[in-house]
Protein backbone atom coordinates (compact mmCIF):
# COMPACT_ATOMS: atom_id res chain seq x y z
CA UNK A 1 0.00 0.00 0.00
CA UNK A 2 1.42 3.31 -1.05
CA UNK A 3 0.82 6.26 1.21
CA UNK A 4 -2.50 8.04 1.05
CA UNK A 5 -0.77 11.23 -0.01
CA UNK A 6 0.96 9.54 -2.91
CA UNK A 7 -2.25 7.89 -4.05
CA UNK A 8 -4.09 11.21 -3.89
CA UNK A 9 -1.50 13.22 -5.79
CA UNK A 10 -0.88 10.53 -8.39
CA UNK A 11 -4.14 11.50 -10.08
CA UNK A 12 -2.94 15.02 -10.71
CA UNK A 13 0.47 14.12 -12.06
CA UNK A 14 1.30 15.19 -15.59
CA UNK A 15 1.14 12.41 -18.17
CA UNK A 16 3.30 12.03 -21.24
CA UNK A 17 0.25 11.71 -23.49
CA UNK A 18 -0.72 15.23 -22.44
CA UNK A 19 2.68 16.51 -23.51
CA UNK A 20 2.30 14.76 -26.85
CA UNK A 21 -1.16 16.24 -27.32
CA UNK A 22 -0.13 19.83 -26.61
CA UNK A 23 3.04 19.51 -28.68
CA UNK A 24 0.94 18.29 -31.59
CA UNK A 25 -1.56 21.11 -31.12
CA UNK A 26 1.16 23.76 -31.06
CA UNK A 27 3.12 21.92 -33.77
CA UNK A 28 0.14 22.40 -36.06
CA UNK A 29 1.16 26.07 -36.23
CA UNK A 30 4.01 25.00 -38.50
CA UNK A 31 1.63 23.53 -41.05
CA UNK A 32 1.19 25.32 -44.36
CA UNK A 33 -1.77 27.72 -44.36
CA UNK A 34 -5.17 26.24 -45.10
CA UNK A 35 -6.30 24.53 -41.91
CA UNK A 36 -5.88 27.33 -39.38
CA UNK A 37 -9.43 28.58 -39.61
CA UNK A 38 -10.93 25.26 -38.59
CA UNK A 39 -8.21 24.66 -36.01
CA UNK A 40 -9.06 28.04 -34.52
CA UNK A 41 -12.74 27.11 -34.44
CA UNK A 42 -11.86 23.84 -32.74
CA UNK A 43 -9.75 25.61 -30.10
CA UNK A 44 -12.56 28.05 -29.30
CA UNK A 45 -15.22 25.36 -29.17
CA UNK A 46 -12.89 23.28 -27.00
CA UNK A 47 -12.54 26.14 -24.53
CA UNK A 48 -16.31 26.60 -24.49
CA UNK A 49 -16.78 22.87 -23.87
CA UNK A 50 -14.10 22.90 -21.17
CA UNK A 51 -16.09 25.62 -19.50
CA UNK A 52 -19.24 23.51 -19.57
CA UNK A 53 -17.28 20.53 -18.28
CA UNK A 54 -16.36 22.48 -15.15
CA UNK A 55 -20.00 22.76 -14.14
CA UNK A 56 -21.47 19.65 -15.76
CA UNK A 57 -18.64 17.15 -15.45
CA UNK A 58 -17.41 18.24 -12.05
CA UNK A 59 -20.12 20.10 -10.16
CA UNK A 60 -22.99 18.28 -11.89
CA UNK A 61 -24.90 21.39 -12.98
CA UNK A 62 -26.71 20.87 -16.28
CA UNK A 63 -27.13 23.88 -18.53
CA UNK A 64 -28.98 24.51 -21.77
CA UNK A 65 -28.02 28.15 -21.84
CA UNK A 66 -24.27 28.22 -21.61
CA UNK A 67 -24.22 30.46 -24.69
CA UNK A 68 -25.33 33.31 -22.42
CA UNK A 69 -21.74 33.67 -21.22
CA UNK A 70 -20.23 33.03 -24.64
CA UNK A 71 -22.42 35.79 -26.03
CA UNK A 72 -21.73 38.28 -23.27
CA UNK A 73 -18.01 37.65 -23.65
CA UNK A 74 -18.20 38.06 -27.42
CA UNK A 75 -20.13 41.34 -27.27
CA UNK A 76 -17.89 42.73 -24.52
CA UNK A 77 -14.76 42.03 -26.53
CA UNK A 78 -16.37 43.20 -29.79
CA UNK A 79 -17.65 46.47 -28.33
CA UNK A 80 -14.35 47.24 -26.68
CA UNK A 81 -12.52 46.68 -29.96
CA UNK A 82 -15.00 48.82 -31.86
CA UNK A 83 -15.18 51.78 -29.47
CA UNK A 84 -12.09 51.81 -27.26
CA UNK A 85 -9.11 49.69 -28.11
CA UNK A 86 -8.38 46.89 -30.52
CA UNK A 87 -5.92 45.26 -28.17
CA UNK A 88 -6.90 41.57 -28.02
CA UNK A 89 -5.72 40.93 -24.47
CA UNK A 90 -7.65 43.93 -23.12
CA UNK A 91 -10.76 42.54 -24.82
CA UNK A 92 -10.11 39.10 -23.41
CA UNK A 93 -9.74 40.53 -19.92
CA UNK A 94 -12.91 42.60 -20.22
CA UNK A 95 -14.90 39.64 -21.56
CA UNK A 96 -13.73 37.48 -18.66
CA UNK A 97 -14.60 40.23 -16.20
CA UNK A 98 -18.10 40.84 -17.55
CA UNK A 99 -18.99 37.15 -17.85
CA UNK A 100 -17.65 36.51 -14.36
CA UNK A 101 -20.02 39.12 -12.97
CA UNK A 102 -22.94 37.73 -14.96
CA UNK A 103 -22.02 34.19 -13.90
CA UNK A 104 -21.91 35.17 -10.25
CA UNK A 105 -25.27 36.95 -10.41
CA UNK A 106 -27.05 34.13 -12.24
CA UNK A 107 -25.39 31.36 -10.21
CA UNK A 108 -27.95 31.86 -7.47
CA UNK A 109 -30.65 30.81 -9.92
CA UNK A 110 -29.14 27.37 -10.43
CA UNK A 111 -28.42 26.64 -6.76
CA UNK A 112 -31.78 25.15 -6.02
CA UNK A 113 -34.03 22.85 -7.87
CA UNK A 114 -33.72 19.74 -9.96
CA UNK A 115 -31.87 19.23 -13.22
CA UNK A 116 -35.04 20.11 -15.10
CA UNK A 117 -35.36 23.45 -13.32
CA UNK A 118 -31.74 24.20 -14.09
CA UNK A 119 -32.23 23.40 -17.77
CA UNK A 120 -35.17 25.79 -17.90
CA UNK A 121 -33.50 28.57 -15.92
CA UNK A 122 -30.25 28.49 -17.89
CA UNK A 123 -32.17 28.34 -21.16
CA UNK A 124 -34.24 31.28 -20.00
CA UNK A 125 -31.24 33.44 -19.12
CA UNK A 126 -29.71 32.85 -22.55
CA UNK A 127 -33.01 33.70 -24.27
CA UNK A 128 -33.39 36.91 -22.28
CA UNK A 129 -29.86 38.06 -23.10
CA UNK A 130 -30.23 37.14 -26.77
CA UNK A 131 -33.43 39.14 -27.01
CA UNK A 132 -31.83 42.07 -25.18
CA UNK A 133 -29.03 42.11 -27.73
CA UNK A 134 -31.67 42.04 -30.45
CA UNK A 135 -33.62 44.90 -28.87
CA UNK A 136 -30.61 47.20 -28.54
CA UNK A 137 -29.39 47.53 -32.14
CA UNK A 138 -27.81 50.93 -31.38
CA UNK A 139 -25.23 49.07 -29.30
CA UNK A 140 -25.14 45.57 -30.71
CA UNK A 141 -25.97 46.16 -34.35
CA UNK A 142 -29.07 44.02 -33.84
CA UNK A 143 -29.77 41.45 -36.51
CA UNK A 144 -27.04 42.86 -38.75
CA UNK A 145 -24.41 41.97 -36.22
CA UNK A 146 -21.69 44.11 -34.71
CA UNK A 147 -19.80 45.63 -37.62
CA UNK A 148 -16.51 47.49 -37.54
CA UNK A 149 -14.63 45.33 -35.08
CA UNK A 150 -10.99 46.02 -35.90
CA UNK A 151 -8.35 44.14 -34.02
CA UNK A 152 -4.93 45.53 -33.25
CA UNK A 153 -1.93 43.20 -33.57
CA UNK A 154 -1.55 40.66 -30.80
CA UNK A 155 0.99 41.91 -28.23
CA UNK A 156 1.45 44.87 -30.57
CA UNK A 157 3.38 42.67 -32.95
CA UNK A 158 1.45 39.81 -34.57
CA UNK A 159 -1.20 40.87 -37.04
CA UNK A 160 -4.32 38.75 -37.41
CA UNK A 161 -3.61 37.35 -40.88
CA UNK A 162 -6.03 36.12 -43.50
CA UNK A 163 -5.09 32.48 -43.04
CA UNK A 164 -5.75 32.58 -39.32
CA UNK A 165 -2.33 31.50 -38.11
CA UNK A 166 -2.15 34.25 -35.48
CA UNK A 167 -5.77 33.58 -34.57
CA UNK A 168 -5.09 29.90 -34.00
CA UNK A 169 -1.92 30.62 -32.01
CA UNK A 170 -3.86 33.09 -29.85
CA UNK A 171 -6.84 30.80 -29.27
CA UNK A 172 -4.69 27.76 -28.63
CA UNK A 173 -2.49 29.59 -26.14
CA UNK A 174 -5.54 30.87 -24.29
CA UNK A 175 -6.99 27.36 -24.28
CA UNK A 176 -3.70 25.94 -23.04
CA UNK A 177 -3.33 28.41 -20.18
CA UNK A 178 -6.94 28.06 -19.07
CA UNK A 179 -6.82 24.26 -19.39
CA UNK A 180 -3.74 24.17 -17.15
CA UNK A 181 -5.53 26.33 -14.63
CA UNK A 182 -8.64 24.13 -14.81
CA UNK A 183 -6.47 21.07 -14.37
CA UNK A 184 -5.01 22.50 -11.22
CA UNK A 185 -8.42 23.50 -9.89
CA UNK A 186 -10.10 20.13 -10.43
CA UNK A 187 -7.19 18.37 -8.73
CA UNK A 188 -7.44 20.56 -5.64
CA UNK A 189 -9.53 20.12 -2.49
CA UNK A 190 -11.99 22.58 -4.07
CA UNK A 191 -12.24 20.35 -7.15
CA UNK A 192 -12.71 17.27 -5.00
CA UNK A 193 -15.54 18.95 -3.15
CA UNK A 194 -17.25 19.68 -6.49
CA UNK A 195 -17.03 16.02 -7.47
CA UNK A 196 -18.45 15.07 -4.10
CA UNK A 197 -21.35 17.50 -4.58
CA UNK A 198 -22.06 15.98 -7.99
CA UNK A 199 -22.03 12.46 -6.56
CA UNK A 200 -24.17 13.18 -3.52
CA UNK A 201 -25.11 16.67 -2.46
CA UNK A 202 -26.83 15.51 0.72
CA UNK A 203 -23.74 13.70 1.97
CA UNK A 204 -21.38 16.46 0.91
CA UNK A 205 -23.36 18.80 3.14
CA UNK A 206 -23.36 16.24 5.95
CA UNK A 207 -19.56 16.18 5.81
CA UNK A 208 -19.37 19.93 6.23
CA UNK A 209 -19.08 21.07 2.61
CA UNK A 210 -20.75 24.47 2.10
CA UNK A 211 -22.53 23.28 -1.03
CA UNK A 212 -24.07 26.59 -2.05
CA UNK A 213 -20.81 28.53 -1.92
CA UNK A 214 -18.95 25.89 -3.89
CA UNK A 215 -21.60 25.79 -6.61
CA UNK A 216 -21.58 29.57 -6.89
CA UNK A 217 -17.80 29.51 -7.27
CA UNK A 218 -17.88 26.73 -9.87
CA UNK A 219 -20.62 28.37 -11.92
CA UNK A 220 -18.87 31.73 -11.83
CA UNK A 221 -15.61 30.13 -12.91
CA UNK A 222 -17.30 28.34 -15.80
CA UNK A 223 -18.92 31.60 -16.88
CA UNK A 224 -15.51 33.26 -16.96
CA UNK A 225 -14.17 30.48 -19.18
CA UNK A 226 -17.13 30.74 -21.54
CA UNK A 227 -16.66 34.50 -21.67
CA UNK A 228 -13.06 33.98 -22.71
CA UNK A 229 -14.23 31.66 -25.50
CA UNK A 230 -16.68 34.35 -26.59
CA UNK A 231 -13.91 36.94 -26.72
CA UNK A 232 -11.76 34.67 -28.87
CA UNK A 233 -14.69 34.10 -31.19
CA UNK A 234 -15.39 37.81 -31.60
CA UNK A 235 -11.76 38.82 -31.97
CA UNK A 236 -10.61 36.14 -34.38
CA UNK A 237 -13.60 36.63 -36.69
CA UNK A 238 -13.76 40.43 -36.13
CA UNK A 239 -17.52 40.11 -36.01
CA UNK A 240 -20.28 39.40 -33.50
CA UNK A 241 -23.80 38.38 -34.40
CA UNK A 242 -26.87 37.57 -32.35
CA UNK A 243 -26.17 33.96 -33.15
CA UNK A 244 -23.68 33.84 -30.25
CA UNK A 245 -26.62 33.68 -27.86
CA UNK A 246 -28.48 31.17 -29.97
CA UNK A 247 -29.90 27.97 -28.58
CA UNK A 248 -27.90 25.87 -31.02
CA UNK A 249 -24.67 27.14 -29.43
CA UNK A 250 -25.75 25.86 -26.04
CA UNK A 251 -26.99 22.59 -27.52
CA UNK A 252 -23.87 22.05 -29.66
CA UNK A 253 -21.51 22.50 -26.74
CA UNK A 254 -23.53 19.97 -24.76
CA UNK A 255 -23.22 17.54 -27.67
CA UNK A 256 -19.49 18.19 -27.86
CA UNK A 257 -19.12 17.35 -24.20
CA UNK A 258 -21.26 14.25 -24.52
CA UNK A 259 -19.17 13.09 -27.48
CA UNK A 260 -15.89 13.65 -25.68
CA UNK A 261 -17.13 12.65 -22.25
CA UNK A 262 -17.74 14.93 -19.28
CA UNK A 263 -15.58 15.07 -16.18
CA UNK A 264 -12.03 14.74 -17.47
CA UNK A 265 -11.25 18.16 -19.03
CA UNK A 266 -9.83 16.70 -22.25
CA UNK A 267 -13.31 15.45 -23.14
CA UNK A 268 -14.32 18.91 -24.28
CA UNK A 269 -11.22 19.19 -26.44
CA UNK A 270 -11.58 15.72 -27.99
CA UNK A 271 -15.29 16.31 -28.51
CA UNK A 272 -14.70 19.71 -30.12
CA UNK A 273 -12.21 18.25 -32.58
CA UNK A 274 -14.50 15.33 -33.43
CA UNK A 275 -17.55 17.55 -33.79
CA UNK A 276 -15.90 20.21 -35.95
CA UNK A 277 -14.07 17.76 -38.20
CA UNK A 278 -17.22 15.74 -38.63
CA UNK A 279 -19.24 18.84 -39.40
CA UNK A 280 -16.60 20.09 -41.80
CA UNK A 281 -16.16 16.72 -43.50
CA UNK A 282 -19.85 16.07 -43.93
CA UNK A 283 -20.61 19.63 -45.00
CA UNK A 284 -18.06 19.42 -47.81
CA UNK A 285 -19.61 16.17 -49.04
CA UNK A 286 -23.24 17.18 -48.75
CA UNK A 287 -23.63 20.87 -47.92
CA UNK A 288 -27.39 20.74 -47.63
CA UNK A 289 -27.96 17.67 -45.54
CA UNK A 290 -25.03 17.64 -43.12
CA UNK A 291 -27.31 17.76 -40.12
CA UNK A 292 -28.84 14.46 -41.19
CA UNK A 293 -25.44 12.80 -40.95
CA UNK A 294 -24.57 14.49 -37.67
CA UNK A 295 -27.85 13.23 -36.28
CA UNK A 296 -27.21 9.72 -37.56
CA UNK A 297 -23.72 9.81 -36.08
CA UNK A 298 -25.06 10.81 -32.69
CA UNK A 299 -27.56 7.98 -32.64
CA UNK A 300 -24.93 5.42 -33.65
CA UNK A 301 -22.48 6.96 -31.23
CA UNK A 302 -24.78 6.58 -28.29
CA UNK A 303 -25.71 3.03 -29.28
CA UNK A 304 -22.13 1.89 -29.82
CA UNK A 305 -20.94 3.69 -26.73
CA UNK A 306 -18.43 6.42 -26.16
CA UNK A 307 -16.11 4.17 -24.20
CA UNK A 308 -15.43 2.06 -27.26
CA UNK A 309 -14.59 5.10 -29.35
CA UNK A 310 -12.73 7.32 -26.92
CA UNK A 311 -12.02 5.04 -23.96
CA UNK A 312 -8.45 4.35 -25.02
CA UNK A 313 -7.69 8.02 -25.46
CA UNK A 314 -9.01 8.73 -22.01
CA UNK A 315 -6.84 6.06 -20.41
CA UNK A 316 -3.78 7.71 -21.93
CA UNK A 317 -4.60 11.19 -20.70
CA UNK A 318 -6.10 10.64 -17.26
CA UNK A 319 -5.26 8.40 -14.36
CA UNK A 320 -8.30 6.77 -13.01
Amino acid at each position, binding site marked *: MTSAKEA*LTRRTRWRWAETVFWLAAFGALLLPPGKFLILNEIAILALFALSLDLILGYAGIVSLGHAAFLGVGAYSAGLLAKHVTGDPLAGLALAIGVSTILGFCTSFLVLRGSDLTRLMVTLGVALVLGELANALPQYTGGADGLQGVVMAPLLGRFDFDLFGRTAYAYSLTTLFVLALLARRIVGS*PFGLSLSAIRC*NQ*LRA*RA*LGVPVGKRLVAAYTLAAAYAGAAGALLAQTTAFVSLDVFDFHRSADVLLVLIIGGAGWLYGGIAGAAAFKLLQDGIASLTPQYWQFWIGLFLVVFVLVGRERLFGGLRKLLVRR
Partner: protein
Amino acid sequence: MTVVLETRRLTKRFGGLTATSDVSFALEQGARQALIGPNGAGKTTFVNLLTGMLPASSGQVFLAGEEVTGLKPEARVRRGLVRTFQINQLFGGLTPLETLALAVGERQGQGHDWRRPVGATVGLDAEIMAVAERFGLVDVLERRTDTLPYGKQRLLEIAAAFACKPQVLLLDEPAAGVPEAERRDILDAIAALPDDVSVLLIEHDMDLVFSFARRISVLVDGALLVEGEPAAIAADPRVRAVYLGEGGHG
Protein backbone atom coordinates in the same frame (compact mmCIF):
# COMPACT_ATOMS: atom_id res chain seq x y z
CA MET B 1 -21.39 15.08 33.67
CA THR B 2 -21.58 17.83 31.11
CA VAL B 3 -24.30 17.89 28.54
CA VAL B 4 -22.94 18.04 24.98
CA LEU B 5 -26.15 18.01 22.98
CA GLU B 6 -29.45 19.34 24.20
CA THR B 7 -32.85 20.20 22.79
CA ARG B 8 -35.39 22.40 24.53
CA ARG B 9 -39.06 21.97 23.62
CA LEU B 10 -38.12 21.11 20.05
CA THR B 11 -41.15 20.95 17.79
CA LYS B 12 -41.71 20.32 14.10
CA ARG B 13 -45.07 20.62 12.38
CA PHE B 14 -45.83 19.68 8.79
CA GLY B 15 -49.13 21.44 8.22
CA GLY B 16 -51.53 19.79 10.65
CA LEU B 17 -49.17 16.95 11.50
CA THR B 18 -46.83 17.32 14.46
CA ALA B 19 -43.85 15.09 13.69
CA THR B 20 -41.79 16.19 16.67
CA SER B 21 -43.63 17.42 19.71
CA ASP B 22 -42.03 19.40 22.50
CA VAL B 23 -38.95 17.22 22.82
CA SER B 24 -36.53 18.22 25.59
CA PHE B 25 -33.63 15.89 25.39
CA ALA B 26 -30.01 15.78 26.58
CA LEU B 27 -26.97 13.79 25.58
CA GLU B 28 -24.08 13.70 28.02
CA GLN B 29 -20.40 13.88 27.21
CA GLY B 30 -19.16 10.42 26.24
CA ALA B 31 -22.70 9.05 26.12
CA ARG B 32 -23.69 5.73 24.60
CA GLN B 33 -27.34 6.46 24.20
CA ALA B 34 -29.98 4.96 21.93
CA LEU B 35 -33.09 6.54 20.51
CA ILE B 36 -35.75 3.98 19.76
CA GLY B 37 -39.36 4.06 18.77
CA PRO B 38 -41.82 2.29 16.51
CA ASN B 39 -42.04 3.10 12.80
CA GLY B 40 -43.39 6.57 12.26
CA ALA B 41 -42.41 7.70 15.75
CA GLY B 42 -40.52 10.64 14.26
CA LYS B 43 -36.96 9.45 14.76
CA THR B 44 -35.81 10.55 11.33
CA THR B 45 -37.46 13.95 11.68
CA PHE B 46 -35.81 14.39 15.05
CA VAL B 47 -32.38 13.61 13.56
CA ASN B 48 -33.05 16.04 10.72
CA LEU B 49 -33.90 18.74 13.26
CA LEU B 50 -30.74 18.05 15.24
CA THR B 51 -28.53 18.22 12.16
CA GLY B 52 -30.30 21.19 10.62
CA MET B 53 -31.54 19.39 7.51
CA LEU B 54 -35.01 20.57 8.53
CA PRO B 55 -35.79 23.89 10.24
CA ALA B 56 -37.56 23.55 13.57
CA SER B 57 -41.03 25.06 13.97
CA SER B 58 -40.14 26.04 17.52
CA GLY B 59 -37.71 25.14 20.27
CA GLN B 60 -33.94 25.17 20.45
CA VAL B 61 -30.91 22.97 19.88
CA PHE B 62 -27.68 23.43 21.84
CA LEU B 63 -24.31 21.92 21.04
CA ALA B 64 -21.69 22.11 23.79
CA GLY B 65 -23.67 24.87 25.45
CA GLU B 66 -24.00 27.05 22.35
CA GLU B 67 -27.24 27.46 20.50
CA VAL B 68 -27.12 26.06 16.96
CA THR B 69 -30.84 26.18 16.15
CA GLY B 70 -30.43 28.58 13.24
CA LEU B 71 -27.22 27.15 11.84
CA LYS B 72 -26.97 25.35 8.52
CA PRO B 73 -26.14 21.63 8.48
CA GLU B 74 -22.57 22.21 7.30
CA ALA B 75 -21.95 24.74 10.07
CA ARG B 76 -23.15 22.24 12.68
CA VAL B 77 -20.83 19.64 11.18
CA ARG B 78 -17.90 22.00 11.57
CA ARG B 79 -18.84 22.39 15.24
CA GLY B 80 -18.75 18.65 15.67
CA LEU B 81 -22.32 17.42 15.19
CA VAL B 82 -22.08 14.73 12.53
CA ARG B 83 -24.46 12.04 11.36
CA THR B 84 -24.52 8.87 9.32
CA PHE B 85 -27.43 7.73 7.19
CA GLN B 86 -29.73 4.77 7.42
CA ILE B 87 -29.55 4.34 3.65
CA ASN B 88 -25.99 4.74 2.38
CA GLN B 89 -25.22 8.27 1.27
CA LEU B 90 -21.80 7.86 -0.26
CA PHE B 91 -19.92 9.23 -3.26
CA GLY B 92 -20.29 6.29 -5.63
CA GLY B 93 -17.86 7.64 -8.19
CA LEU B 94 -15.14 8.50 -5.70
CA THR B 95 -12.85 6.19 -3.73
CA PRO B 96 -12.93 5.80 0.06
CA LEU B 97 -9.56 7.56 0.04
CA GLU B 98 -11.07 10.60 -1.67
CA THR B 99 -14.10 10.50 0.60
CA LEU B 100 -11.92 10.57 3.70
CA ALA B 101 -9.62 13.22 2.19
CA LEU B 102 -12.70 15.35 1.57
CA ALA B 103 -13.99 14.97 5.11
CA VAL B 104 -10.61 15.64 6.72
CA GLY B 105 -9.86 18.50 4.33
CA GLU B 106 -13.16 20.25 4.99
CA ARG B 107 -12.67 19.92 8.71
CA GLN B 108 -9.25 21.54 8.40
CA GLY B 109 -10.75 24.36 6.37
CA GLN B 110 -8.89 23.39 3.18
CA GLY B 111 -12.01 22.77 1.12
CA HIS B 112 -11.91 26.06 -0.75
CA ASP B 113 -8.22 25.73 -1.62
CA TRP B 114 -7.95 25.51 -5.42
CA ARG B 115 -4.20 25.99 -5.79
CA ARG B 116 -2.68 22.92 -4.20
CA PRO B 117 -3.40 19.34 -5.14
CA VAL B 118 -5.53 17.19 -2.86
CA GLY B 119 -3.24 15.45 -0.42
CA ALA B 120 -0.69 18.24 -0.17
CA THR B 121 -1.86 19.18 3.33
CA VAL B 122 0.50 18.32 6.14
CA GLY B 123 -0.78 15.59 8.42
CA LEU B 124 -3.60 14.54 6.11
CA ASP B 125 -1.86 11.28 5.34
CA ALA B 126 -1.57 10.01 8.90
CA GLU B 127 -5.09 11.04 9.74
CA ILE B 128 -6.68 9.29 6.75
CA MET B 129 -4.71 6.12 7.42
CA ALA B 130 -5.71 6.13 11.08
CA VAL B 131 -9.39 6.36 10.19
CA ALA B 132 -9.03 3.73 7.45
CA GLU B 133 -7.36 1.32 9.87
CA ARG B 134 -9.93 1.88 12.58
CA PHE B 135 -12.73 0.94 10.15
CA GLY B 136 -10.91 -1.80 8.23
CA LEU B 137 -10.86 0.11 4.95
CA VAL B 138 -7.13 0.10 4.22
CA ASP B 139 -7.37 -2.62 1.57
CA VAL B 140 -10.13 -0.92 -0.38
CA LEU B 141 -9.01 2.72 -0.15
CA GLU B 142 -8.41 3.06 -3.86
CA ARG B 143 -11.43 1.20 -5.16
CA ARG B 144 -14.51 2.96 -6.44
CA THR B 145 -16.99 3.21 -3.60
CA ASP B 146 -19.89 1.81 -5.62
CA THR B 147 -17.96 -1.41 -6.27
CA LEU B 148 -17.36 -2.15 -2.57
CA PRO B 149 -19.20 -4.91 -0.72
CA TYR B 150 -22.18 -3.60 1.19
CA GLY B 151 -20.54 -4.15 4.57
CA LYS B 152 -17.55 -2.04 3.56
CA GLN B 153 -19.86 0.68 2.34
CA ARG B 154 -21.59 0.69 5.71
CA LEU B 155 -18.20 1.00 7.40
CA LEU B 156 -17.27 3.87 5.09
CA GLU B 157 -20.58 5.52 5.95
CA ILE B 158 -19.43 5.69 9.58
CA ALA B 159 -15.75 6.29 8.78
CA ALA B 160 -16.55 9.40 6.72
CA ALA B 161 -18.53 10.86 9.61
CA PHE B 162 -15.79 9.90 12.04
CA ALA B 163 -13.20 11.67 9.86
CA CYS B 164 -15.04 14.92 10.65
CA LYS B 165 -13.87 14.48 14.26
CA PRO B 166 -17.33 14.66 15.79
CA GLN B 167 -18.10 15.63 19.35
CA VAL B 168 -21.48 14.06 18.81
CA LEU B 169 -22.00 11.22 16.37
CA LEU B 170 -25.55 10.36 15.32
CA LEU B 171 -25.64 6.81 13.99
CA ASP B 172 -28.82 6.15 12.03
CA GLU B 173 -29.37 2.37 11.91
CA PRO B 174 -25.70 1.64 11.21
CA ALA B 175 -26.18 -2.11 10.71
CA ALA B 176 -29.33 -1.88 8.59
CA GLY B 177 -29.35 -4.40 5.77
CA VAL B 178 -25.87 -5.75 6.47
CA PRO B 179 -25.52 -9.50 5.89
CA GLU B 180 -24.79 -11.56 8.99
CA ALA B 181 -21.19 -12.30 7.96
CA GLU B 182 -20.22 -8.63 7.84
CA ARG B 183 -22.33 -7.49 10.75
CA ARG B 184 -19.71 -8.28 13.35
CA ASP B 185 -17.26 -5.79 11.76
CA ILE B 186 -19.74 -2.98 12.10
CA LEU B 187 -20.69 -3.79 15.67
CA ASP B 188 -17.00 -3.97 16.59
CA ALA B 189 -16.29 -0.64 14.93
CA ILE B 190 -19.14 0.99 16.83
CA ALA B 191 -18.09 -0.58 20.12
CA ALA B 192 -14.53 0.68 19.56
CA LEU B 193 -15.49 4.32 19.05
CA PRO B 194 -13.36 6.46 21.38
CA ASP B 195 -14.84 7.68 24.65
CA ASP B 196 -14.56 11.35 23.83
CA VAL B 197 -17.12 10.92 21.04
CA SER B 198 -20.65 11.03 22.37
CA VAL B 199 -22.88 8.66 20.43
CA LEU B 200 -26.59 8.70 19.81
CA LEU B 201 -27.73 5.51 18.13
CA ILE B 202 -31.02 5.60 16.26
CA GLU B 203 -31.94 1.97 15.89
CA HIS B 204 -34.61 -0.63 15.28
CA ASP B 205 -32.50 -3.62 16.11
CA MET B 206 -33.06 -4.38 19.80
CA ASP B 207 -30.02 -6.67 20.10
CA LEU B 208 -27.78 -3.86 18.99
CA VAL B 209 -29.53 -1.31 21.19
CA PHE B 210 -29.30 -3.38 24.35
CA SER B 211 -25.71 -4.45 23.74
CA PHE B 212 -24.52 -0.92 23.03
CA ALA B 213 -26.58 1.62 24.92
CA ARG B 214 -26.12 2.65 28.52
CA ARG B 215 -29.17 4.85 28.28
CA ILE B 216 -32.25 4.65 26.09
CA SER B 217 -34.77 7.28 25.02
CA VAL B 218 -38.09 6.13 23.62
CA LEU B 219 -39.84 8.32 21.08
CA VAL B 220 -43.53 7.73 20.38
CA ASP B 221 -45.72 9.87 18.15
CA GLY B 222 -43.06 12.55 18.02
CA ALA B 223 -42.80 12.94 21.79
CA LEU B 224 -40.40 11.49 24.34
CA LEU B 225 -42.26 8.75 26.16
CA VAL B 226 -39.61 7.71 28.64
CA GLU B 227 -35.84 7.73 29.18
CA GLY B 228 -33.70 5.50 31.33
CA GLU B 229 -31.26 2.65 31.67
CA PRO B 230 -31.75 -0.38 29.44
CA ALA B 231 -33.05 -2.61 32.21
CA ALA B 232 -35.62 -0.04 33.26
CA ILE B 233 -36.73 0.51 29.67
CA ALA B 234 -37.06 -3.21 29.02
CA ALA B 235 -39.23 -3.54 32.11
CA ASP B 236 -41.37 -0.47 31.48
CA PRO B 237 -44.94 -1.55 30.73
CA ARG B 238 -45.64 1.53 28.57
CA VAL B 239 -42.66 0.77 26.37
CA ARG B 240 -43.70 -2.85 26.12
CA ALA B 241 -47.17 -1.79 25.13
CA VAL B 242 -46.22 0.64 22.37
CA TYR B 243 -43.02 -0.82 21.14
CA LEU B 244 -41.63 -4.11 22.28
CA GLY B 245 -45.06 -5.69 22.18
CA GLU B 246 -45.38 -4.73 18.54
CA GLY B 247 -41.94 -5.42 17.19
CA GLY B 248 -40.77 -8.30 19.33
CA HIS B 249 -37.54 -8.40 21.27
CA GLY B 250 -35.03 -9.32 18.60
